[in-house]
């Protein structure tokens, strides 16, 4: 067993002589850090590009908006203002002045009489009963 122990000890010396050829921390950890840095840089770049596009659109659309406000403002001349508003607002329909809403007094006499309900005496005199007509 002594010979075997000495063999194991020699092999152990060879075992401990081996070292990893590099730096694992430098190989693995910076990759994660640089990836995160790229994500941050990309996000900031995208945000900056969006802001630039938004700013350019505002600059492009701003003159058209000014023109609209200028045309909607009433001009200094009152006459022009009146014409402009009359052109924009539709005229109210005119009500005829010679039409009266109240009926004329003579029209009440021309009203037809109300239909009267026949009385019992009128029925007895004018229309015989069924028994009498049969007999």
């Amino acid at each position: 067993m002594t010979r075997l122990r000495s063999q194991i000890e020699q092999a152990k010396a060879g075992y401990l002589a081996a070292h990893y050829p590099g730096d694992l921390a430098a190989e693995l950890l910076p990759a994660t850090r640089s990836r995160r840095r790229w994500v941050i840089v990309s996000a900031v770049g995208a945000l900056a590009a969006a802001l630039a596009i938004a700013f350019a659109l505002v600059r492009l659309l701003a003159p058209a908006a000014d023109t609209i406000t200028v045309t909607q403002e009433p001009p200094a001349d009152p006459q022009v203002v009146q014409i402009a508003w009359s052109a924009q607002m539709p005229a109210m329909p005119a009500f005829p002045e010679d039409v009266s809403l109240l009926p004329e007094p003579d029209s009440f006499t021309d009203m037809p009489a109300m239909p009267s309900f026949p009385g019992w005496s009128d029925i007895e005199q004018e229309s015989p009963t069924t028994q009498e007509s049969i007999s």
Partner: protein
Amino acid sequence: MEAATIQAAQAGHKPSQAQLLRLLQDPWYRVCLSLLSNPDDAREATQETALRFLRDLPRFAGHSQLKTWSIGIAINVCREIRRQRHPADLDSNPDMQTSEPSPADMAGLAEERRRLHALLADLPPRQREAVVLRYFEDLSVEQTAAAMQCAPGTIKATVHQALRALKRRLQRVEI
């Protein structure tokens, strides 16, 4: 290894993680080299071990030493690489002999590594793992069992079989 460093690394503190990697990279590489017998494979296995170590570090509960736990990761990585490179070289067949290194591999090995390989070459993978952890990494039976994910009694038996095989081989060489 300080507990504060481990806790900080578990919380994602990069300098603490770098400190642990620098402490453990040589034990990982030595275990991988002795189990795979190829410097390129050992380097690849060490990097994979480091990636899995960083991934699983938040789940490390502290039931064993961090080094023992991380060597268990390295052993699993080496087993996977062995299965990929040599599908017939399965752990379920303890009598399976590992292949000899090619002349190119031998040329790249230093004298100490050659001695190491000469000692371990004839051992089946499980016995080789047990010998490396018990006698080279100086782990206890319990620590070796934790790293190899088996019972301490299994480790005792495996180490006993390995020593007996080495003794037989030594007697053959002397004769």
